[in-house]
């Protein structure tokens, strides 16, 4: 297991360099003039050239990449072209917001999804059909539409939850949760149904298998059968799906952050991309990669704990 983990970490480190490299080069070949954006339409050519020089944009691309890479290995992600603030400073405050949203969604769609999946696997055919219908709806309904609907009902009509904005947990724990309820629902909805369906399918397979019949014959209780045996055996694919849906939730978070006006990495990504603020975009690529890597490592560890078979490979 240590060896698997070690290899996984090594692969992650490589990923951490490859992803920002790809975004850097994609940005570099996209046309667009940062200095022009900062100075406006009426800027004189000389003003633009001066600013380009100040920002180091007149250097050849290879040189700019190596400068960035050098800084990256020292933990320095550079400065925003637009505000002059350090990238780590700009993104630091926003990381907590994004993590609250994304991890919150992960917890919700895992617990609710698995719960619903188990329920529908032990329930009748009707329940299963209902889950199927909701699954299709969940995948078809866009999260931004759902977000606007939730705001319209709960924030505007009923006025029980805030329409927009984020309250930091150190300011008010209950306010923090309140500001996250609707965004987390919007972001996790599609995930819930994906996980539920996968769980139900795997559970049905497990519950119909020979060992389940033997355990029942031996007098094992239904709940012990369900949780200690069937769920554990079904967990492999379920956990894999959770990992995949999580990555999808990362990109979904960008839209949800915009609708709910949460000052996270996603909304910063949109802003910085339209402004051609390359250092900040690079920084966001790095942060997102780290989040994906960490979550996938955790999922792998959980998988190896739950599945003896996975330990061997």
């Amino acid at each position, binding site marked *: 297991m240590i060896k698997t983990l070690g290899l996984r970490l090594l692969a992650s480190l490589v990923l951490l360099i490859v992803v920002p490299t790809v975004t850097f080069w994609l940005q570099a070949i996209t046309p667009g003039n940062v200095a022009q954006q900062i100075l406006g*339409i009426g800027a004189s050519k000389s003003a633009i050239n001066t600013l380009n020089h100040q920002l180091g944009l007149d250097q050849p691309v290879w040189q700019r990449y190596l400068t960035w890479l050098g800084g990256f290995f020292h933990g320095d992600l550079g400065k925003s072209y637009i505000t002059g603030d350090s990238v780590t400073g700009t993104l630091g405050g926003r990381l907590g917001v994004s993590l609250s949203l994304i991890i919150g969604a992960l917890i919700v769609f895992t617990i609710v999804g698995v719960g619903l999946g188990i329920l529908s696997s032990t329930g009748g055919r009707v329940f299963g059909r209902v889950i199927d219908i909701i699954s299709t709806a969940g995948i078809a309904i866009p999260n931004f539409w759902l977000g606007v609907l939730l705001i319209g009902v709960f924030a505007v009509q009923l006025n*029980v939850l805030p329409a927009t904005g984020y309250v930091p947990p150190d300011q008010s724990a209950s306010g923090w949760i309140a500001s996250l309820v609707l965004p987390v629902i919007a972001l996790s909805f599609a995930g819930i149904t994906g996980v539920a369906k996968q769980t139900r399918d795997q559970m049905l397979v497990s519950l119909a298998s020979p060992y389940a019949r033997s355990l029942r014959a031996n007098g094992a209780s239904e709940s012990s059968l369900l949780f200690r045996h069937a769920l554990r055996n079904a967990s492999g694919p379920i956990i894999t799906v959770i990992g995949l849906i999580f990555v999808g939730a990362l990109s979904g978070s960008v839209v949800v952050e915009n609708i709910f006006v949460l000052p996270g990495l996603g909304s910063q990504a949109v802003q910085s991309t339209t402004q051609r603020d390359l250092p900040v975009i690079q920084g966001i690529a790095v942060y997102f990669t780290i989040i994906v890597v960490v979550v996938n490592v955790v999922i792998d560890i959980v998988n190896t704990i739950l599945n003896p078979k996975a330990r061997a490979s």
Partner: protein
Amino acid sequence: MNTKRYLIRIGAVIGVVATSIALAGCSSASSSPKAPTTLTIAAPNGPNSLDPALNGNGTPLIWYTQLAYEPLIKRAADGSAMPGLATSWKYSADRLSFIITLRKGVKFSDGTPLTAASVVAWLQYYKAHTSFQWMQNVSGIAASGALQVTLTLSTPDPLLPIAIDQEGEAGDIVSPDGLKDPAVLGKETHGAGPYVLDTSATIANSQYVYTANPNYWDKKDVHYKKVIIKVIADENSTLAALRSGQVDAAAISPKNVASAKSAGLQVTAAKAAMAGIYFFTLGDSSSPLANLKVRQALNMAVDRKGITKTLYLNNGVPTTQYVPEGMPGYVAGLEKKYPFDTAKAKKLLADAGYPNGFSFKMVVQPGASSQNLLSQAVIQNWAQIGVTVQLTAPTAFPDYVTALETGQYAATSLNFYYSAQLTDLQQLFTKPALYNAFNFDLPEANTLATEQRKYDITSAAGKKAAETSETYMVDNALAVPISSTDTVMASSKKITGVDFTSAFPIPDLTTFKPAN
């Protein structure tokens, strides 16, 4: 125990616990009444920069600078120039000098005093760093007294009072401390205005928090302890925030007016911008757009009434002019100049030598949300007379500039905030002009601009010269103005002072106050 019932019970318990935590939170988060000591505004964009020399001007982007930087002249809602950091100002007899007298006893937020020297230092920094044209005719800046500054002009310029008010931002004096390291001006404020930016609470492009400036010279005029500007890009989210009371005031689009009113919000509107189409190739003899009859045909082929009603509902009027009714330069008779007449337009086009029409490329200016729809509607009108237009709609400003630089686009959509007739003339049709990307040269436009510059904007001679310019611009169909559109502000009944007119269509946040 039955597993299903067990699971359902667990689910119910979790649900109840989560809901009660959330509802407990909501009582402190959303339904608690906003303390009247804080004003919260929503804006669709963050500032280009907090540095007044670099920020967008002439648009609501000035909100970010006007809270912290007191301008030399304060423009009132009716457009009149009132004393700000300057108590009086005048042109010399030959109009080649502009003398500004400063207010006594003013301190910047950092406690240093306002002196002629500090104003000169700022104006010099502004002129050296800005890309805007407000100070282009100023050849010399000097202190002519302890509290007096004289600007020497290379040619007369009646727009200086606008340049140094909160619209132009050239008069947003930055303290000498702020100028020591101008790089900090992107994230801190060093002004003499009623508020100061709270850098620890501010999150760039998300929310800007300002606290009352203890050194402000007119303390009774500061109505709040804190002002927060939240950046909310989405129109629906803005409306939701207004309706739920999270935000006290924001600009909304005409289609949300009914919803705002039914939610009990006050709605204020005034004519704010001209929406239309602008041609780049007026000086290119190979382009059909350089032909007067062609441009007149294009003007006549546009269904201004239909487009305005559909896009702007009750918050727009069709127009052929560049300035709104009531502003010097507006000539009522010009509205009749290009009646919607497809047949006549086709005939004019044939007379001009294009019986089978022609085609060109147009680019939409990103920013104003209805520009794309406006362009598409106009293109459909023009298709009726055989003119085909390929439209490109870049989503972000840098892409727009890149597109312009390719030189392939003969026209663009335009959303021009009202300022003064001379501003239109100088930014659109003279050589050089802000929008004149292909450097066309219209000698008459240049002559008319020189003539207008000789007079004060509101003087009788100035008005006459503005009318002459306006008539020239419309008669020659230099562009295609289509609608005179409103800025619509929705505000909570808890605040008043949301005043603005077409003479100065950008609401002044410093005049908002609690309703008592």
